[in-house]
Structure formats: C-alpha cells, structure tokens
C-alpha cells in the first residue's frame, strides 16, 4: 500500500530523532490518505498558496494545494522574529511578501546549529521544509535554510511557483480537456456512427425512404399498367428508367429491394421485370 517513493522521503524528513514515534504515526495516516495521489517532491510555493490550501481530513491529513497533496515545500523570503531561546530548536517567521508562516528548525547536530547561525533577521533565504499542521496552525518543519547570495533566485522562485502552478492546472485542465475531447471523440464517433449507420436508416425512413417509397409506388404503378402487364416478357429496366426518369443506378437498387420484397419478379432475364399480381 505504501510505495517506497511515498514513504521514504517522508520518513527521511521526519524532523529528527526526537519525535520519531509521533511523526511516523502522522505520516502513516497522511500517506494512507494520500495513497491515491501522486507523490510530489519539493514543491515551490508562496505562503499565500499554503494559507489557502485545504486540508480535507483533520490535522494528520495532508495539505492540498492546487489539487496536489504536499509534504515538502520550497520557499524564498525574508527571515524575521528569529527565536533561539530554546536549545533544541530555532523558530522564526518567513515573510515572502505574500504572507508570513511560522517555521521551526530542530537543532540536533552541530551542522543544524551552524546553518541556523548564518540565518539572520532581515536576510533573504531559500528554505526547504515539511509542511505540517500543529494545533490548528500550519507551520514548516524546516530541514534546510540557506541565505540567498544571487538575488535572481528570488525572481526565479516566484516564476517557478507560477510555473509549477500553471503546469499542474494545465495537466489537470489537460486531463479535463482530454476527457472532454475524449468524450467529444466518443460523441463524435457516435454521431459519425449515427450519420453512417443511423442516418441512412433515418433517411431511408424519411427522405430516401419516402423517395424510395415514392419510387417503389411509381415503379409498381408503372408495372401495374395494363399495357405492361399484358407484355409477357415483362418490362426492361431501361424502359422504366426512361419512362419514369429515374437514374438507372438508383433504379437498380429500388428494383432489387422490390424484388426482395416479392412485389416484382424478373422474367426472361435479370433486366426484365413484371409486377406480382396478388
């Protein structure tokens, strides 16, 4: 049920060894609720997207942005309110211009402490973290914070957010469009089927049908004439075509169906017909 790709990245970023039992529980539930969705890697988002994200099934369920369940997100913004009063964690707020979000970085190794030392209030950082709801508030359990040195990365991040968003909406839209075109195709194939199969039936009932009925009657009426019934060898197709001004190819079809219906019969050869007298 848990594919490796879903489970391993989650447990890899489970926030360190302190809370191992708690997060794993959370992940079990979240990944079990997320099993139907594709696992996403590190997704670039804005704080506003996170704020507007929905959470379907309580605190332990995943957070859904743009129809995609997110676990790990990447943000760029300004650090503020850095709080180092606790030994085991560093708290701060990230302001990316679209909103602010509380962040927490567990300090387990000296590496974590060193990385957080370089993160100062007012500095632009690239931050990767695990998105989580805790006591009703969304927060980020950060596993990487790096000061930005090339500020094109700021522009890039927001463009990447737009790109990821539009790519996803496109693929969702694409699916919908695909569905629509598929159903269109199904519909059109149905309609073409209708035009190829049903229409002839319908037309045989309506246009050609009436026409054929008229033609049937015209031909029968012609053959029923005493002048024709008297002729032993029957009437040649050419004559009927000439007299009734029916194209010969059309006439052949009608004659065949009349013959099939037992209303006329061929006489001396397959071109001469007589009316069946009942």
């Amino acid at each position, binding site marked *: 049920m848990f594919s490796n790709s879903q489970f391993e990245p989650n447990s890899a970023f489970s926030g360190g060894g302190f809370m191992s039992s708690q997060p794993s529980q959370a992940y079990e539930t979240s990944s079990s609720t997320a099993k139907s969705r594709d696992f996403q890697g590190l997704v670039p988002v*804005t*704080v*506003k*997207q*996170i*704020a507007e994200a929905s959470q379907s099934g309580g605190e332990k369920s995943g957070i859904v942005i743009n129809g995609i369940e997110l676990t790990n997100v990447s943000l760029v913004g*300004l650090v503020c309110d850095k709080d180092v009063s606790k030994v085991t964690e560093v708290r701060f707020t990230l302001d990316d*211009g*679209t*909103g*602010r*979000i*509380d962040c927490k970085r567990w300090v387990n190794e000296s590496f974590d402490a060193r990385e957080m030392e370089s993160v100062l209030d*007012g500095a*632009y950082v690239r931050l990767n973290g695990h998105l989580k709801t805790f006591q009703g*508030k*969304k927060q980020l359990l950060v596993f990487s914070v790096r000061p930005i040195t*090339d*500020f*094109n990365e*700021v*522009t*890039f991040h*927001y*463009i990447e*957010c*737009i790109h990821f*968003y*539009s790519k996803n909406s496109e693929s969702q839209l694409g699916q919908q469009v695909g569905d629509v075109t598929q159903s269109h195709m199904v519909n059109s194939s149905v309609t073409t089927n209708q035009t190829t199969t049903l229409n002839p039936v319908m037309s045989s009932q309506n246009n050609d049908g009436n026409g054929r009925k008229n033609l049937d009657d015209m031909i029968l009426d012609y053959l029923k004439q005493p002048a024709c019934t008297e002729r032993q060898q029957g009437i040649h197709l050419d004559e009927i075509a000439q007299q009734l001004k029916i194209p010969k190819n059309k006439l052949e079809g009608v004659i065949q169906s009349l013959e099939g219906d037992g209303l006329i019969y061929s006489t001396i050869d397959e071109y001469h017909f007589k009316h069946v007298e009942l």
Partner: protein
Amino acid sequence: MDTSSPSAFVNGALLRRYIGQKVRTVVQVIGSDMGSVVGKSTDDLQIFVKGSPPASTTTYLEVIGIAESENSIRAETWTNFGISFDALNYNELCKLANGEFKHLFI
C-alpha cells in the same frame, strides 16, 4: 500564518495601482542621500524611495514599503540585490504577479 499584509510586486507602471498599500520593487540606484534613494524601475521609470537607506547600496536595491504616490515609496525594508540582477526577468514577474497569477501572490 498571516496573509493580511502582503506586499505586491510592482514595477514603475504598476506602482500607481497600489497607492497607500504595501509594495515591493527592485530599483537600479541612480543616486542616494541621507533620507532617500532615486532609482530606475525595472521598466525604466524613475522612482523616489524615502526612508533610511542602508549605509552602502549596491547597483540593485529591493525596497518594501508603502506606495505614497505613483512614483514614490516610503520604504521599511531595504535589501541590496547586488550588482548583477536581471531587471527584465523581474519586470516580467511583476506583470505576471499582477495579472494572470495575481491570486498566488496577493
């Protein structure tokens, strides 16, 4: 989580839409003194930034603050964006962030 006071990405032309509101922009510094910076916006308009700029500024400077008029900002946050910054990209981002994808930002 607080999205009550976002700052809109603006270039020179978009600034007028947000007078009285919080904005962010990147300018190329033309001149600066104690209480202000004169900059060129990413779409080549002149912007006056008031407040207290950092002691030394680089070529590109990001300012976040309140738009006071169509060409001036009272800045609260100043960040040096260095000497090589792609103003064109930023300008396009401003347009996207105020257009089709505005809902991702403000």
